[in-house]
């Protein structure tokens, strides 16, 4: 029983991070109908930037802020330079371009930082809380991870629902032509959408770095989990991304705990295919989004 509770708590923590990555993918999918396969590479680069600051004596907080800012810039540049030309072409083209960007970033990171995994310091302690005379597998740093992800989600929801900027973003995502006629600068909104998504990804990278280490390929699996979480929730739905991320985190934690950690990525593939077989539009998605 204690093990089950531990695995559930550990799953919630990692699930929160998958939810953040999924949220970044959903933001991009909603506005441009592109799955950003470079997401893992982009958050790897921003995490390396944060790592550089820390290894030069900077604080955790400075590193986090710089990671978010560099994510904003990176996302905007990527949308303007690479994604704009393929935005209205066949989905295959966008897949290949973002996949190309993923390895371009991995290669560049390998050149700059080498392939050895580096450890990244956590924000708070990693010794588990005490409860009922035993130590839980849930530490202050895990609480921090969950709280940050929740805050990011609440913040995004607030921006989208309550501000005129959010209204323009939603208009762009749902009906770009109508939005353009009504005076929304659609191109700028798309750039901002990518920037925002990359910033959310940057937060996720810094949060998960202490448990995965930082290396050019360390976040391949995180990208797969984020994608799976986004699809489970329905690629169109931000709340779906959150629920999908948490559910996937818990399921994968059980798989790792009871079956073995080597097959976690394969387990996520099984979950992905199972969900798509039963509900191709995801748990929260609308059927219209997947009509062929």
């Amino acid at each position, binding site marked *: 029983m204690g093990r089950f509770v531990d695995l559930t708590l550990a799953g919630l923590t990692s699930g929160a991070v998958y939810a953040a990555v999924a949220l970044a993918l959903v933001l991009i999918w909603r506005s441009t109908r592109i799955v950003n396969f470079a997401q893992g590479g982009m958050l790897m680069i921003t995490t390396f930037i944060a790592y550089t600051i820390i290894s030069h004596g900077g604080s955790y907080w400075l590193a986090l802020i710089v990671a978010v800012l560099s994510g904003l810039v990176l996302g905007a540049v990527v949308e303007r330079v690479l994604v704009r030309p393929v935005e209205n072409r066949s989905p295959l083209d966008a*897949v*290949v371009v973002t996949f*190309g960007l993923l390895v371009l970033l*991995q290669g*560049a990171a390998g050149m700059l930082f080498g392939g050895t995994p580096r450890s990244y310091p956590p924000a708070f302690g990693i010794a588990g809380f005490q409860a009922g005379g035993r130590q839980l597998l849930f530490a202050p740093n895990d609480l921090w991870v969950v709280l940050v992800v929740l805050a990011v989600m609440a913040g995004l929801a607030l921006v989208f629902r309550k501000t005129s900027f959010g209204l323009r973003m939603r208009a762009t995502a749902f009906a770009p032509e109508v939005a353009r006629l009504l005076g929304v600068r659609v191109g700028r909104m798309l750039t901002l959408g990518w920037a925002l998504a990359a910033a959310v990804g940057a937060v996720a990278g810094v949060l998960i770095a202490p448990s995965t280490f930082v290396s050019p390929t360390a976040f391949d699996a995180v990208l*797969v989990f984020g994608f799976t979480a986004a699809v489970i929730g329905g690629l169109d739905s931000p709340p779906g991304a959150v629920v999908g991320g948490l559910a996937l985190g818990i399921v994968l934690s059980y798989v790792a705990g009871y079956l073995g950690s*080597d*097959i976690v990525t*394969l387990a996520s593939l099984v979950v992905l295919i199972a969900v798509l077989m039963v509900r191709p539009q995801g748990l929260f998605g609308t059927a219209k989004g997947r009509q062929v």
Partner: protein
Amino acid sequence: MTALASAAPLRLWRQSTLVRHLTWSVLGLVVLYFVSTSLDAFANLQLAQICYTAIATAGLTVLSGLSGQISLGHGAFVAVGAYTTAVLLEHLQWPLALVLLGSVVVGGALGCLVGVAAARLRGPYLAGATLALAVGLPSLADYHGLRDLLGGANGLIVTSEPPPLSLGESFPLERWQAWICGLCLVITLFLLSNLASSRLGRDMRLVREDEQAAALSGVHVARTQIVTFGISAAFAGLAGGLFAIVNSLAAPGAFTLALSLSLLTAAVVGGLGSLAGAVYGAVIVTLLPNWTADLAQRANLPRAIYANIPLVLYGLVLIVVIVVFPGGIQSGVRKLGALLRPARSGRPQENRQET
């Protein structure tokens, strides 16, 4: 009389794709023979690598170019083929031809399995699922239940058969391996080019262009997609078997995401949908890492830099080709060919776009 005698084979050549493909295959074998006997051992090894890469790329080309499905995870099927060969050769000592056939069958079977899911997934969904396969499958080798069979993280050593004694005592092993891989490549291209011009190939193109129209005209869409995936993965499996023999190894570290990526790069650079393009692409992605490593060593660059040059180049090339030059090399070759023979432009264009 002489005019008649020479006209008959020409007519046969024009009318029968089978004859055309057979002629090309025989020509290919002759060229491979002369190239391999004039090359040194290292170059023969590269030739073998080009051949198995081209086999996997050709399979991917049929999948993406003909039926419009994408796979970011074809390296996973290569891995399956390599492990199948390693197990059959090391544990069971089957003869080589049977071993390779085994890799084809196992790769194809897994491909059909994935194809069942793939038939329900579209575009980015399929890309994501195959990406998960590429990232997840190699870790299976280190799973505790399979560690004894598959050798864990260190993988399995493959001792490939020496060249037959009838070729002479000092016949170089590398040339023998280049022959095996070259023969397999020619057979692969022969089979796939016939497939492309067959009824199944036409069905695949229909499915790619418009699934609903294909279904309305009596094509079984899902079955076509599953079969295509199976065929494509079967050839990736064959490539994996050859990989294991040439490199004497099947290990998880050999089948990274970068391998899947290099196959996709080869297919895209050569020109998606063109088997000839698959060969050009395979030549480029095989030789590129060697060239850059040579250059980097001469310039005394640190290892971290030159080890990553191929990755950076793959990424750049993928992006630039898709954005600027979507047809790849083969469309350039075709344009050049059209420029060189303006006289034949009056002839009605045959539907040879995709072969």
